[in-house]
């Protein structure tokens, strides 16, 4: 009966299911990997297995994270292709998601059931999530530094210090703009983790994996546990990044580069990525 | 020549079954209903639908016995031949509904489950939880929707039937009004089937839906259509009294083992569940050892009325008795009776699985209705058959055409050619009392079996020979009447002329005068009251002059029609100076076959009701006293025979 004249109508089912699928693969899977890596800023110090025994836990995390990022950027094959696939998936998921979300109308005021609130937040988190992901990728990946307070440019050789500087708004201390950016990160990652966990729950109904109320309840617990874990990872990653002093982190990164690749490599990297304008003397840093 | 069409008014079981059957004969159907057909009053039927079945038959039951029970239950007031045809056709209806997907309750092996019902000692009632009518209606609604989407049926929902259009004693169409836009228009039809249900609202609070005013039947009646046995109104023994209506507690509650009792001590203040077994008076079981709680409805109602009103033994000193299911297993109850137990819980706020239900009789069904005729079938015994005992070989088989002639064009046709009455609005099958679970059967039987008659009539008929002006005049007449009502406005409105007040007073009066116990004196008083109400109605003030969705207009118009129907009900009751089935006259407590084994036929002539008595065809079964083995009755010798059978 349905009128199937247009492209959207003819491929309605395919588009709907692709929308659902892309949310899980690649986006959701990437999200898990991404948050796991980033949260190593917080827990990596405990996983160094004796290496860098001179570092405290926070510094250890930074070292671990540094190695992870270095590994990804130098060892993962076709990285750009993977990235482009991811970006296209996100764009596809976002555009259709916004289109679909606009067909509904929230009514949690009248029907304040928990499921209904999650329906509403799934859509809000989608909208905010799109903005956040765009900002996040544009600033830290595409180096649209004009959007970054303080203008820090993220670089994988100095992944910890540039990240911290971008979040804090400067290399020195947390600025007001930096605070706003950090807050935006907090909101963005929180909503996205929710969006993923809740989306995973609804996807199981959409695809028909969970039919009975009991199954939906059980799968709900699994999704809640996953969401809680990812939320912990996301918050700890953000917390650790914001608490990181970019200047100290830079020093650590330089030390690690030298250890791994020698002085020459560091000089080349420094030339390309000069880092923060020194506010204290080079010697002071060296002393530390 | 224009394509021949059939108009069906009413979208309950009878109307839908008729629409489907007629459309199946490649005759387009225009289906009219005041409500979306899925919301018709048939949804309220709860208990089940009767038909002989393999299990009961192997225990000595038969289609013939079903016929015999129905005639006996109806106290020999029904023409016998159509009832025979219906009983014989019953099993086919069940099979068909089964094919349509009705979720009948099942045995563990997957066959259709059966339950006991009033007026029978055999399990012959098929059911779907405790909302059988709903399930049956939905099945027919679905089939109708299918035909609608194939263009064979055109629905006019929220259209109100205003009048039949009759030319030279032949129905050629109807006038109807869209209840939303208020547009009034005529529709041509080569035949018109009235399937408009009962008239419970004449009695104010009944178990009926708000649409069951009987107005459509009254509108036919005003146009010269005869109305049979108007005084035969069934009062259902078990209902929950409410502020807006009385809600039915299905007979199936008793069929599944429910027991009716009152405390032996009048005015006992203890909650029912705390009263020990020895202090309970199971008056139905005591008085009717064979049938117990499953005596027919009129008898149960009278006994409850007697216990409460005469003996003042009602629970908590009020007019109510216990209907007790608390001895049954919860899961069993939910499976078999869930729907009605929920109704009780929602409206009374008590769990009927824990506490005995408090119930009282309420107006439920009209055995009377539009008078119809038929062509008799092949079965013509030399003399009427005596009582049929279980296990005896039935005198005849079950093939079609024994009772009525299959497809005869006049089957269930009114005194107006081409105008038919199906379902509750048809007076034909239930005599003076309808047995539980026979209503759904008669509705669907009418639609399917006699739907064929309608199709045959239309096919053999030469088509409509009526000028357009006839239709235009009919529309004009109705428009003028509507306008005259709307124009009354609300100026100088008083309760005296308020349509809602008039209707309320009508209901109270009718319930008091003409339900469980009647007397000539009281009926005559009611006749005077009705005259007063009619007078007030002539000065009615509407209170809503809107030309869009004017519900007050619809209600007021129906009130006028209910007054006319009420007059027929009262007059029929006055004329029938005997007691028979649901019609119990304190001043004439015995059945009088010599004078009153006849149909009271109300005819509207010169703006007034006249009652004629018409002979009944009783050539199939010999009347016998209808006692249901009551302990103090003279016929208690019969008791042993029936007891032996069970």
């Amino acid at each position, binding site marked *: 009966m*349905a009128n199937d004249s247009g492209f959207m109508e003819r491929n*309605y089912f395919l588009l*709907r*299911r692709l929308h659902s699928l892309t949310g899980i693969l690649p986006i959701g899977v990437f999200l898990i990997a991404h948050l796991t890596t980033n949260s190593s800023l917080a827990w990596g110090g405990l996983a160094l297995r004796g290496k860098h025994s001179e570092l405290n836990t926070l510094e250890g995390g930074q070292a671990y994270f540094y190695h992870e990022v270095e590994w990804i950027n130098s060892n993962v094959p076709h990285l750009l292709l993977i990235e482009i696939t991811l970006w296209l998936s996100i764009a596809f998921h976002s555009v259709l998601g916004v289109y679909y979300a606009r*067909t509904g*109308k929230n*009514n949690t005021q*009248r*029907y304040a*059931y928990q*499921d209904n609130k999650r*329906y509403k937040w799934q*859509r809000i988190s989608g909208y905010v999530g799109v903005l956040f992901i765009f900002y996040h990728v544009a600033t830290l990946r595409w180096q649209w530094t004009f959007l970054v307070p303080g203008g820090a440019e993220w670089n994988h050789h100095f992944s910890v210090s540039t990240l911290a500087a971008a979040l804090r708004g400067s290399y020195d201390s947390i600025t007001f703009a930096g605070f706003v950016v950090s807050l935006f990160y907090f909101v963005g990652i929180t909503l996205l983790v929710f969006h993923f966990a809740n989306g995973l729950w*609804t996807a199981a*109904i*959409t695809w*028909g994996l969970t*039919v009975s109320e009991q*199954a939906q309840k059980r799968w709900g617990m699994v999704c809640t546990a996953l969401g809680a874990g990812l939320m912990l990872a996301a918050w700890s990653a953000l917390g650790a990044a914001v608490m990181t002093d970019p200047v100290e982190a830079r020093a650590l990164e330089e030390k690690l580069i030298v250890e791994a690749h020698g002085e020459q490599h560091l000089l080349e990297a420094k030339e390309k990525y000069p880092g923060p304008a020194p506010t204290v003397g080079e010697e002071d840093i060296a002393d530390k | 020549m224009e394509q021949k069409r059939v108009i069906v008014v009413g979208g309950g079981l009878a109307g839908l079954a008729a629409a*489907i059957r007629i459309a*199946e004969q490649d005759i387009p159907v225009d289906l009219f209903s005041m409500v*979306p057909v*899925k919301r018709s*009053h048939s*949804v309220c039927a709860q208990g089940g639908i009767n038909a002989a079945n393999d299990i009961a038959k192997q225990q000595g039951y038969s289609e013939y016995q079903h016929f015999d029970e129905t005639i006996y239950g109806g106290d020999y007031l029904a023409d016998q031949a159509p009832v025979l045809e219906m009983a014989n056709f019953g099993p086919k209806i069940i*099979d*068909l509904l089964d*094919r349509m*997907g009705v*979720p009948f*309750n*099942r045995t563990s*092996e*997957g066959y259709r*489950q059966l339950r006991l019902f009033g007026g029978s000692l055999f399990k012959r009632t098929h059911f*779907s939880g405790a909302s059988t009518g709903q*399930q049956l209606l*939905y099945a027919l609604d*679905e*089939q109708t929707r*299918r035909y609608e*989407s194939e263009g064979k049926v055109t629905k006019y929902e929220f259209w109100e039937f205003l009048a039949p259009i009759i030319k030279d004693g032949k129905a050629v169409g109807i006038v109807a009004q869209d209840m939303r836009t208020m547009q009034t228009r005529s529709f041509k039809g080569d035949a018109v089937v009235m399937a408009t249900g009962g008239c419970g609202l004449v009695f104010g609070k009944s178990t009926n*839906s708000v*649409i069951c005013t009987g107005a459509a039947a009254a509108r036919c009646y005003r146009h010269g259509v005869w109305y049979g046995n108007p005084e035969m109104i069934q009062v259902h023994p078990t209902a929950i009294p*409410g*502020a*807006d*209506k009385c809600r*039915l507690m299905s007979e199936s509650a008793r069929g599944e083992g429910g027991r009716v009792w009152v405390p032996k001590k009048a005015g006992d203040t203890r909650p029912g569940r705390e009263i020990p077994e020895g202090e309970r008076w199971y008056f139905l079981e005591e008085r009717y050892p064979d049938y117990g709680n499953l005596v027919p409805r009129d008898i149960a109602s009278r006994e409850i009325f007697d216990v409460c009103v005469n003996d003042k033994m009602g629970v908590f000193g009020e007019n109510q008795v216990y209907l007790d299911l608390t001895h049954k297993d919860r899961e069993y109850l939910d499976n078999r009776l*869930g729907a009605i137990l929920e109704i009780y819980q*929602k409206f009374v*706020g008590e769990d009927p699985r824990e506490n005995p239900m408090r119930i009282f009789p309420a107006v439920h069904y009209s055995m009377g209705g539009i008078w119809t005729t038929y062509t008799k079938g092949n079965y013509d015994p030399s003399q009427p058959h005596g009582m049929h005992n279980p296990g005896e070989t039935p005198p005849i088989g079950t093939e079609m055409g024994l009772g009525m002639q299959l497809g005869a064009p006049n089957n269930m046709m009114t005194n107006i050619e081409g105008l038919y009455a199906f379902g509750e609005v048809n007076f034909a099958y239930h005599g003076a009392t309808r047995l539980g679970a026979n209503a759904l059967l008669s509705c669907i039987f009418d639609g399917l079996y006699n739907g064929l008659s309608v199709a045959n009539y239309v096919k053999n008929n030469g088509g409509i020979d009526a000028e357009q002006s006839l239709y235009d005049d009919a529309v004009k007449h109705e428009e003028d009447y509507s306008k005259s009502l709307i124009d009354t406005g*609300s100026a100088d409105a008083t309760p005296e002329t308020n349509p*809602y007040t008039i209707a309320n007073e009508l209901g109270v009066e009718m319930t008091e005068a003409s339900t469980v116990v009647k007397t000539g004196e009281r009926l005559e008083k009611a006749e005077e009251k009705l005259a007063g109400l009619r007078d007030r109605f002539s000065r009615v003030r509407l*209170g*809503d002059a*809107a030309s*869009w*969705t004017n*519900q007050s207009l619809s209600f007021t118009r129906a009130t006028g029609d209910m007054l006319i129907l009420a007059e027929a009900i009262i007059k029929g009751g006055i004329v029938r100076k005997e007691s028979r089935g649901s019609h119990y006259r304190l001043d004439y407590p015995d059945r009088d076959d010599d004078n009153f084994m006849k149909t009271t036929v109300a005819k509207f002539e010169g703006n007034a009701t006249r009652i004629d008595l018409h002979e009944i065809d009783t050539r199939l079964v010999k009347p016998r006293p209808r006692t249901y083995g009551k302990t103090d009755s003279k016929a208690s010798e019969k008791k042993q025979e029936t007891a032996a059978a069970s």
Partner: protein
Amino acid sequence: MSNTATTPATNSATAKQGRTVRFRILRCDGPGKPSYWSEFDVQPELNANVISCLKQIAEKPVMVDGKEVTPVVWDSGCLEEVCGACTMVINGKVRQSCTCLIDDYAPRDGDTITLEPMSKFPVVRDLWVDRERLFHNLKRVKAWVPIDNTYSLGPGPKESPESQQTHYKLSECMSCGCCLEACPQFTIEEDESKWNNAFIGAHAISQARLFNNHETGKQLKGERLDELAGPGGVADCGNAQNCVKVCPKEIPLTESIGAMGRATTIHKIASFFSGKK
């Protein structure tokens, strides 16, 4: 039986007889006309429900300010919660008005009850809405068993009692529209030509499940699933799950949605590889 929104805690024991209850009613004279609030005071009868109070108002339609107005228009039928007609929004939530007992909703003198028409269907007048779309959606999923004819052809298929109980539950749906009114994804659509592509709602999805499970009803399974896989089909469901919470018949609507999700997935994958439409 679990408790739902339709079985409120009973206050009948504490409700005071002879009290006055105020009704705030959202009225509308007809399509395209503005909506406005009217207030009436009613002294409810014993065991009163919203219907009996509306009847009292109809008999004496005088507002709180003494102004006489036209009687309030509303839709009703069986008054036993099996026909679905009297559905409206009471105190902000959709439900049948016949089972809405005044003792539960307004036990104290001066308590207010608000009545609004359902918002997902066009208003006809006052509290009466036009739910034709609901029945149209049943046509979309061919919610019927395609029997050959109405002649006697023997019994239907045998069925286990467990399966019958499942079917009976689904078949109790009275097309009242509560599930659609509460659904954030089902929105009002007055343009009939758009009905076929707008979200079909839990009601029809559940009916599709009912008939897909029937031995003979299965014959149309493919057509039903094609419809449910298309625009406005089951994939539009946003899983807010309000439907199942407001359903007066406690029909497992979300399970039906899950079941039809699964069926459409399998159906589409199967037809992708089998090359059929």
